């Protein structure tokens, strides 16, 4: 069944995590902004990666990772253009130009760099094609995904941390009452100044974001910085209703007797079965 969706709802890190945990074999196709990436996995490990219009041939990868010079690359392109990557790799090893390790580590570096670039994609569609792997002529690797997932998660963590620090954008900001603090002596960025100019217990953070044309992440970053610097604090917006008082929770069972409760659940089970 389908494993497909939108990167806005499902990040690259989450996808890698899913593929890693489920030990999936197949190709993840991501149609990003302007280009398409194809990432192959074998039993949950990175096997191959190809980015849209880029020359992903072995010769190009070896050149990009500085294993061969520009002139060697041109020569290979001219004389070995009909060879598959595997054939070319064998030729280079047998001729003593490179070792198998050289080739594999070049490919790993190249594939991992593609994944790193994917971490910056926040828009696009993805689909996973089970059991689809690159053709026989391609050289595949086996790279554990854990480190890549951790790397991608760092970006995600920032977002999650900011959400924890500032859980609601419907709160307002006010300047902290610290006598002696002069804003003019503090070095603020243009974005921070723009936010500061709207700080007022009547304005919610969401309204400030709208006024300053910042997205949720940007406004949280700026507000977090201002809070950390001790310049502002979060307050309930003026005029907002007070929080609802906690009311005692209604009881789920009409009886307090444990045996009667169990009997009641068993009656429910029998009734549902008979529907």
């Amino acid at each position, binding site marked *: *069944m*389908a*494993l*497909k*969706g*939108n990167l*806005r*709802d*499902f990040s690259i890190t*989450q996808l890698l*995590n*899913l593929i890693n*945990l*489920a030990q999936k074999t197949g190709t993840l196709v991501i149609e990003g902004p302007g280009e398409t990436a194809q990432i192959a996995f074998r039993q949950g490990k990175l096997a191959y990666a190809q980015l849209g219009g880029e020359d992903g041939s072995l010769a190009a990868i070896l050149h990009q990772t500085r294993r061969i010079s520009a002139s060697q690359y041109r020569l290979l392109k001219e004389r070995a253009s009909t060879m598959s990557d595997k054939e070319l790799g064998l030729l280079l090893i047998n001729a003593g130009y490179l070792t198998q390790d050289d080739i594999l580590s070049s490919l790993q570096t190249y594939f991992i760099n593609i994944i790193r670039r994917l971490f910056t994609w926040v828009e696009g569609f993805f689909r996973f094609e089970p059991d689809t792997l690159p053709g026989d002529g391609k050289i595949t690797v086996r790279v554990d995904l854990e480190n890549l997932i951790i790397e991608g998660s760092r970006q995600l963590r920032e977002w999650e941390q900011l959400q924890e620090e500032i859980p609601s954008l419907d709160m307002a900001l006010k300047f902290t009452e610290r006598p002696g603090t002069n804003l003019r002596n503090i070095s603020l960025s243009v974005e921070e100044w723009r936010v500061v100019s709207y700080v007022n217990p009547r304005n919610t953070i969401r309204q400030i974001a709208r006024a300053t044309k910042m997205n949720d992440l940007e406004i949280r970053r700026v507000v977090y910085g201002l809070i950390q610097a001790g310049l502002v604090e979060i307050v309930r917006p003026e005029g907002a209703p007070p929080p609802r008082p906690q*009311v005692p*929770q*209604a*009881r*789920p*069972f*009409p*009886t307090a007797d*444990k045996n009667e*409760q*169990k009997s*009641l*659940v*068993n*009656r*429910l*089970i029998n*009734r*549902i*079965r008979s*529907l």
Partner: protein
Amino acid sequence: MQTVKMVVTGPFNAGKTAFIRSVSEIDVVATERRITSEAEKVKETTTVAMDFGRITVDDDLVLYLFGTPGQKRFDFMWEILSEGMLGFIVMVDSTRPETFREARSILQTFRAYAPTPYVVAANKQDMKDAWELEDMRLALRLDPKVKLLPCVAHKKESVKAVLLELLYSILAEMEAGDA
């Protein structure tokens, strides 16, 4: 007359109303309104207050099923509906991964309201775009102990299976509490 209630919750268009309709002995008291927002026009109407279904168990006991409104702007109803519930079901549309994050957030919100047993129903499993259960479990970050059940909300047998699993969980928790 004793009454108990279960809550059916989940994101917009997850299939909560269909779920209750499949087993309710009364015509579901639905509070649907025509959808005006373009972004949410994947169906004609949506629940704005609650859905209300009933299953009479015997002369002395009635089970009420409450469906929560799926759209975020009606979430002030959730806490009211969750009061005194026996357990709850989180409906997730298996074909719309864009709603998984919201489903998880709803699940956490309801867990905060009341630590009652719950199950997650992966609805629309009969559709070709449906995600596999194990993929959904990972995507929803569900603990292996949480019951994630395949569901087709308009099929009575499927709905019965989900309700029974929730009741088994409730019973198991009661028995574990006794031990």
